[in-house]
């Protein structure tokens, strides 16, 4: 297992309630593992905790990366072990050029330019257009997210956490994103993919469903998605879109059973 999250509890800053409640799951090396759940279920919190941000210290539980207990480690140490995060809303650090920004995490200083161009290509930004640009207000939101992704990929991490890489992007680029994920996977990176879009999640091998701070189930992605739909009472949606035409191989009886288990008709 590349990542093991055990019994992880994250309290709010004032310690009055918990955002994550004894969350446990595992991520297999080389897989795309989706974290799904509705708004406010704790997905970003989980990402920040794995990355090691200061305000997200567990009151209980541990995180292991490749067998090493990283719970006490600082963010920089974790990054140097091979973990990185592409933020849901990356900051606009005005003034840095795009290549400079992407170069920050590149270790192979000798081939810097090739590495930067390679990273831009992976996220489908044409190097001719973006090598000379600056991160400023003229960069569109979607472009900024791609630059963020490029910077994360350029680090060649072992685990890349993508917090809603699809947010702020239109439908047309969704397919583009599938293709990007596959390219990243080919580079031997394990992806922890946070999303609440079922179509994006389709690329995932496995998934974990977060529900109000609880990790309800970790399994093959379709089963996790089905549980999510059942929790949310989205039976018609579920049958119509997700499991139609054997896209996911489950029969109607199975779907009905899961919905009954969740107290939905």
């Amino acid at each position, binding site marked *: 297992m590349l990542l093991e999250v055990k019994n992880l509890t994250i309290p709010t800053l004032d310690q009055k309630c918990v955002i994550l409640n004894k969350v446990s799951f595992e991520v297999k090396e080389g897989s795309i593992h989706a974290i799904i759940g509705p708004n406010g279920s704790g997905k970003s919190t989980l990402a920040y905790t794995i*990355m090691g*941000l*200061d305000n997200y210290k567990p009151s209980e539980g541990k995180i292991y990366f490749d067998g090493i207990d990283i719970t006490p480690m*600082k*963010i*920089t140490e974790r*990054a*140097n072990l091979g973990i*990185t*995060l592409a*933020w849901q809303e*990356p*900051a606009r*650090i*005005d*003034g*840095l050029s795009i290549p400079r920004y992407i170069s*920050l*995490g590149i*270790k192979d200083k000798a081939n810097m330019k090739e590495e930067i161009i390679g990273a831009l290509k992976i996220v489908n930004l044409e190097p001719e257009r973006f090598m000379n640009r*600056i991160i400023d207000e003229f960069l569109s939101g979607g472009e900024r997210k791609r630059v963020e992704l490029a*910077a*994360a990929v350029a*680090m060649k991490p072992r685990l890349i956490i993508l917090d809603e890489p699809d947010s702020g992007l239109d439908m047309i680029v969704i397919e583009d994103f599938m293709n990007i994920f596959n390219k990243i996977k080919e580079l031997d990176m394990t992806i922890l993919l946070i999303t609440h879009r079922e179509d994006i999640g389709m690329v995932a091998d496995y998934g974990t469903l977060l529900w109000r701070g609880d990790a309800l189930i970790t399994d093959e992605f379709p089963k996790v998605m089905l549980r999510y739909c059942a929790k949310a009472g989205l039976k018609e949606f579920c049958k119509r879109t997700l499991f139609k035409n054997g896209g996911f191989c489950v029969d109607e009886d199975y779907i009905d059973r899961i919905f009954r288990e969740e107290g939905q008709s």
Partner: protein
Amino acid sequence: MSNVEYPREILESLEDYNIDIRDFLPGHGKGAKLLLDFNKIRGMEDVDGVILKGREIENGIIADVIIKEGTKIEEPVHLCFGVNKETGIQEIFPRIIAEDNTDATVQAHCSFPKANGLIHKMFGHFYIGKNCNFTYSETHYHGENSGALVAPVGYVYVGENSVFENTFYLTRGTPGKVKIMIDIYAMKNSVIKSNIKAFGKCKNDSVRIRDSVFLEGENARSVIKMKAVAKDGGEVLMFGITEGNAPRCNGHVECSEIVLGKGSICRARPFIRAIDPTSSVSHEASLGRFPQKWLDELQAKGLTEEEATQILIEAMLQEER
């Protein structure tokens, strides 16, 4: 005048800004130029449509730059004020005139790599005529000893329908004691853009800048942007003034400053005043440290907190391109 003798220390002193002064020397590049070594004129070259005159006076020079009516020059006029001594007084009196319908850039490089008690003063007068596009940019390097005292004063008149752009960079090396005052008077339909960036690095650095724009003509517009970092006891004070004194004029002042390390002081005083009811003037000031999220984002790329801070300073003080 192709092989001017000029101290290597000065020629190379702006390398961190990606500027090689050699590119601007007499015999190089196509632009008009005036090269000063302490108080001696070492080289002067003019081009069609640009009159350049320099006269040595007791502690410095009087320099006249006139861009003649209708002239559009692509290469900037280069003024290099270098001093390769530790002490002394250099006083510059530039008189810069851009006649109507001109398009020009004047670039001044002020470099004092060995300064240790050196005084540089400037009293500049700028007259920009009608329908001009004029850029004045000044890049400073004051060595590593916090040993300069630099006090430039500038008065700028910007005529109707003209665009005046001013940039001032003092972001490499140690500033020492710096006091800058610029007053810009903007006539009808003119546009003023002023960008100032400074970095105070230690307790012997104190940078005080007062940048004032008076919107005197109808529909005149201005944006002042001041950015500074004060580190390890350095002090930076930025005073951005804009007055809207004419119908439908519009001005904005922005000061952002970052304070790092013990004893550093940043102060920003945007001062705005509108006396015409149809004018609008606004300001925005922020002081403090870099947002934690920015630091986190960079640290997630493997940088330490110090490295991340360094990158953020670099981004903030980046010369505009």
